[in-house]
């Protein structure tokens, strides 16, 4: 999943998350294959960012990263005070590491 600006969005990209407007009204559902009409509609609603699925060739980049991901997860776990042998704490560290990891390529 990658967060992009609307101006970077292209026809045939797959939405990786629902798009709502400010009133929580659903505009487009996750999994939608974007059309030119969708893009015009999103622009008219003032939507400027959206999540899209990564193209298949980006998987190679992800495959190189497990070590970083594990490091990140350990880093977050080591910041917890108190007992960490808790399934919720482990899951927080795991998912937060994935999110932070996915953020990285977007920071330029």
């Amino acid at each position: 999943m990658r967060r992009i600006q609307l101006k970077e969005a292209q026809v045939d990209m797959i939405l990786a998350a629902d798009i709502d407007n400010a009133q929580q009204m659903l505009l487009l559902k996750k999994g939608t294959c974007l059309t030119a009409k969708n893009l015009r509609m999103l622009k008219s609603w003032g939507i400027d960012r959206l999540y899209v699925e990564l193209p298949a060739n980006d998987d190679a980049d992800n495959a190189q990263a497990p070590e970083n991901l594990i490091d990140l997860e350990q880093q977050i776990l080591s910041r917890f005070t108190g007992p960490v042998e808790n399934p919720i704490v482990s899951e927080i560290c795991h998912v937060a590491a994935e999110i932070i990891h996915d953020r990285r390529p977007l920071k330029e």
Partner: protein
Amino acid sequence: MLSPRLKALVRHIDDLPTLPRTVFRITEMINNPGASARDLASVITDDQVLTARLLRLVNSSFYGFPQRISTVTRAIVLLGFDAIRHLLLTTSVFDVFSNRNQETTSSHEDLWDHSLGCAVAAKVIGRHIRHEKIEELFVCALLHDIGKIVSMVYAPDDYYAAVRLAAEKNSLLIEAETELFEFTHTDTGRLLAERWHLPAMVTEVIVHHHTPGQAGAFVRDATIVHLADILCRALRYGSGGDNRIPALDQCVCDLLNIQKDQIDTLLREIEAGFNDIRPFTEAITTAASDGHKAVVTPVIF
């Protein structure tokens, strides 16, 4: 019995800005079921700065309305009463968060990001557990560390001594504060909450976000903000003055019934929500800086 240091801070509390009277009047009006959008608009337009901010915000890309909104009444009809209160309170709080000292700019910004991240997280958690007061949770979380701002502005030497000790000992700031002084940011937060006459729910969450089990009638709300604090620290939103993540309180499992398999959805919604609200804070910053010297164009009803 107040310690001398806390007494000194209390004296400064009297110098702290109060929330604009308009915000209180708006809150009262929103709680009145007989109030109309026009009644609310007349209160808002009494305050030119709030009017300018509101119109600027509703016309920002954050809301993304396809047409320009030129009247306060229209903004109220489109956004709803709760959203208006939330928006005006957030912009007013931003004034207190706004920096007066260039040397502490990054600390202020980090704490603002941390507070905003926590507010988004509390709202997401609240929605998941079907909490009936989601907007109030947002405000509670936005203000949960307000005591740190008070210390940062009025007792910076003490505040940064605690930050340094927390870094040296790799501890939470509250542990460093306890070691150095006889009070913590939760005590200074309580003083400010009382000064601002904030609702009991907000005050109790400020005081007990590290010890949610002691929050009495507001234990559930304090637990939500406690979990929100943990999640936004794990996601590295800003900084609360230290690099640690508080231990997960048993109340999270006992009262919120949060399960392991919900964490993925919660964190991803928080990340999306935080990214979405960033332009909102930029709009607030611009609106706030413009608002103080605003030449307000006439508002037509």
